[in-house]
């Protein structure tokens, strides 16, 4: 009996010790240390800060099915006094969203339920969504915000813009992006010369630094074969023919040539090609560089192309100028005298490989050129890249890091891949885009925002459904011909480089609109992009002006403005002395350069529109920086009265 009771005593004590382990573990928790230290820290502060109760703190976000215990150690999140404290006690930066409503891990990733340092921070093993490094934080905004310009998320917006412009969808399936227009390759053999083409294929950015075409890192042999393959396509699209160059191009003397070039230069300036095309790096950014264009294309192609752009390059968003044949010849002559590449690299003499067509076709298919460029002769399967629809949720352990030494996380992988695509595998085909470090970060942020997380619909901000207004009839034909929507928006469709025309007739006076087509003078001297002169006939101007005058009207913008002397004088006082409008606008040569000069605004704009614009500029043009002075109706009336007297 004694032995049994001895055993019983030993086992009882052992049981007590074992039972004590759990409460002891709980007593000596890591986070308690942080909380005690926090209370000591705030005791030393001059401001009064409420001490933390010792205990786990969590935010339970029911709708997002998350429990985040970060606040257990990060106690100073809502205390302004701790703005300069060391982590983990520092104040959270002011942000738009309430931490209680969203929790922490929704934006930061990481293991929310963890209460130990090593299980929260960094690359926690096998946790599907490790904490995001600070540089990529905006990708979390993108998980809910699918609209075009996410407020307070500039890196995300820049990244999405880059993904759209770089045409990633040509090879990768990604949701939310559309294919960009890219020049088709039909008829390229009649357009470019072979030397230019080989140089271009080897390094596109050398000819045009702003090109979106990436570098496919082709070997010299591959570039030669691909160029030979492409140069075989000489048939012009739609079975069209080249018109011959006009006789005026054949001149008999140097002075005649100089006159022709002079005329061409003037017309080139009036046509404002530089609004869309860059010339030696200066100018618009939406079309190709023209600085060396006559070393790329032959004169006959250039003449025919400017004459009828959509025949030679289907669907190109270039307007058709109404040049006479002789005028256009002079423009081409001017371009041939100026836009030459004097340093074009000449190639060694080359005999085409007899199998160059097959080899070139294989290279064409391997690199998926048809993903961007249309080439009617090439059909059949082309190789594509992986589907990126849910790339933001890819698990780090599923990625092959090859022989590289980068940190093994998803953001690091994506950024490195975007910067130097072929470092992870010798057989990779992705071309090099030449992004800068910041651009690569932005693209990574945009890609990371495509996650497979299921988020409740009420959290998601969808892009506005894009209106698709296609003008009809004679007006519609002119709009398509002149590509107005490359710079203007009409009823929600188009690109907003210039103005939104949807309310143009309520904004500008009708006689001004028609006169503007004839002489599109510059309204805002500081802008690069200016309205070109299309050399339209009066009939065409009437069609455009009449349609705009009758259709692009918004009745609610009408307003009768009294112009008695007292109101005008009060308006003048408000303009100069109260609101200082002269800081950005010029009248009579005095004032600032930011907004358009207002010298003749009374004969240009409709009074009702001026009134409504002054009351809320952002509603009419969000990118304008005109202040909203919260004017009363009377003040706006007075200012409008004053402005309408300026004729």
């Amino acid at each position: 009996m004694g032995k049994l009771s001895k055993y019983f005593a030993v086992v009882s004590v052992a049981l007590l010790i074992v039972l004590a382990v759990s409460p002891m573990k709980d007593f000596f928790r890591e986070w308690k240390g942080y909380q005690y230290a926090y209370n000591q820290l705030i005791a030393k502060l001059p401001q009064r800060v409420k001490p933390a109760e010792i205990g786990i703190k969590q935010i339970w976000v029911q709708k997002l099915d998350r429990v985040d215990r970060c606040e257990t150690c990060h106690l100073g999140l809502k205390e302004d006094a701790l703005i300069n404290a060391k982590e983990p006690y520092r104040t959270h930066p002011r942000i738009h969203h309430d931490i209680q409503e969203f929790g922490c891990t929704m934006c930061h990733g990481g293991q929310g339920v963890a209460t130990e340092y090593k299980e929260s921070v960094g690359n926690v093993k096998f946790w599907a969504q490790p904490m995001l490094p600070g540089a990529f934080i905006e990708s979390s905004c993108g998980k809910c915000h699918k609209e075009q310009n996410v407020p307070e998320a500039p890196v995300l917006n820049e990244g999405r813009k880059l993904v759209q412009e770089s045409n990633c969808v040509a090879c990768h399936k990604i949701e939310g992006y559309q294919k960009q227009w890219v020049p088709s390759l039909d008829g390229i053999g009649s357009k470019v010369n072979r030397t230019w083409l080989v140089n271009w294929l080897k390094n596109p950015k050398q000819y045009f630094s702003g090109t979106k075409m990436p570098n496919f890192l082709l070997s010299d042999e591959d570039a030669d074969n691909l160029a030979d393959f492409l140069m075989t396509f000489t048939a012009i699209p739609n079975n069209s023919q080249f018109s011959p160059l006009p006789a005026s191009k054949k001149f008999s003397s140097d002075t005649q040539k100089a006159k022709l070039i002079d005329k061409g230069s003037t017309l080139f300036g009036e046509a404002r090609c530089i609004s869309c095309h860059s010339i030696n790096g200066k100018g618009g950014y939406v079309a190709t560089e023209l600085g060396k264009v006559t070393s790329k294309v032959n004169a006959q192609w250039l003449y025919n192309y400017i004459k009828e752009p959509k025949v030679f390059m289907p669907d190109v968003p270039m307007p058709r100028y109404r040049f006479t044949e002789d005028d256009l010849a002079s423009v081409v002559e001017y371009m041939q005298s100026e836009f030459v590449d004097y340093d074009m690299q000449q190639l060694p003499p080359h005999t085409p490989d007899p199998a160059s067509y097959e080899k070139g076709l294989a290279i064409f298919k391997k690199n998926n050129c048809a993903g961007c460029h249309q080439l009617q002769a090439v059909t059949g399967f082309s190789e594509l890249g992986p589907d990126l629809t849910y790339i933001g949720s890819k698990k780090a352990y599923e990625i092959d890091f090859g022989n590289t030494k980068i940190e093994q996380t998803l953001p690091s992988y994506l950024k490195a891949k975007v910067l130097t695509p072929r470092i992870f595998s010798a057989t990779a085909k992705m071309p090099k885009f030449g992004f800068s470090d910041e651009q690569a970060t932005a693209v990574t942020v945009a890609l990371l925002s495509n996650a497979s997380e299921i988020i409740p619909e009420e959290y998601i901000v969808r892009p506005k459904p894009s209106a698709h207004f296609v003008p009809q009839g004679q007006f519609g034909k002119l709009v398509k011909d002149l590509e107005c929507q490359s710079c203007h928006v009409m009823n929600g469709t188009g690109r907003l480089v210039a103005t939104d025309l949807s309310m143009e007739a309520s904004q500008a006076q009708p006689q001004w609109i028609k006169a503007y087509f004839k002489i599109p003078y510059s309204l805002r001297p500081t802008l690069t992009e200016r309205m070109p002169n299309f050399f339209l006939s009066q009939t065409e101007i009437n069609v455009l002006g009449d349609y705009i005058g009758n259709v692009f009207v918004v009745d609610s913008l009408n307003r009768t403005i009294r112009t008695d002397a007292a109101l005008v004088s009060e308006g003048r006082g408000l303009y100069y002395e109260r609101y200082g409008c002269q800081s950005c606008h010029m009248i009579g040569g005095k004032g600032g350069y930011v907004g358009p000069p207002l010298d003749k605004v009374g004969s240009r704009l409709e009074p009702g529109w001026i009134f409504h614009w002054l009351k809320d500029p952002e509603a009419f043009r969000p990118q304008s920086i005109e202040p909203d002075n919260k004017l009363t109706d009377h003040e706006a009336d007075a200012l409008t009265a004053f402005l309408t007297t300026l004729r």
Partner: protein
Amino acid sequence: MFSRCAGPNSHPTERTAAKDSVSIKDSATSQSTSTQAVNLTYEQQQGKILYTKYCSVCHGEQGKGDGFNAYNLDPKPRDFTDPRAMAGIDDATLLATITEGGKGVNKSPLMPAWGGRMNKMEIEYVIEYVKDVERQH
């Protein structure tokens, strides 16, 4: 098992004691870029975007009061990098000036009132950035 009461000092963070930055210096690359944005906090970065949009045209890209629009202005826009010009200007003054414009603080009406375009949080972001510009000089 018996983990001692750990505290903040047992886990030295990799970052410096400087403000937690939205820095481009992340783990994928070993060198940081040489752009100005390298050491700005989140609020300062947001402020810089807003500053570039609304303020730089008069106050200059570097805050020197030499934006291209400053040419015709009299008085000239304030130079944030000049300690004498910025002496005695505290956060509350900056907030009032930006929100109500020059006229609202008995100064030149040439400074517009931005309270209608930016909310208080956005103006505070801009103030953070302007203070950073001041500090750099």
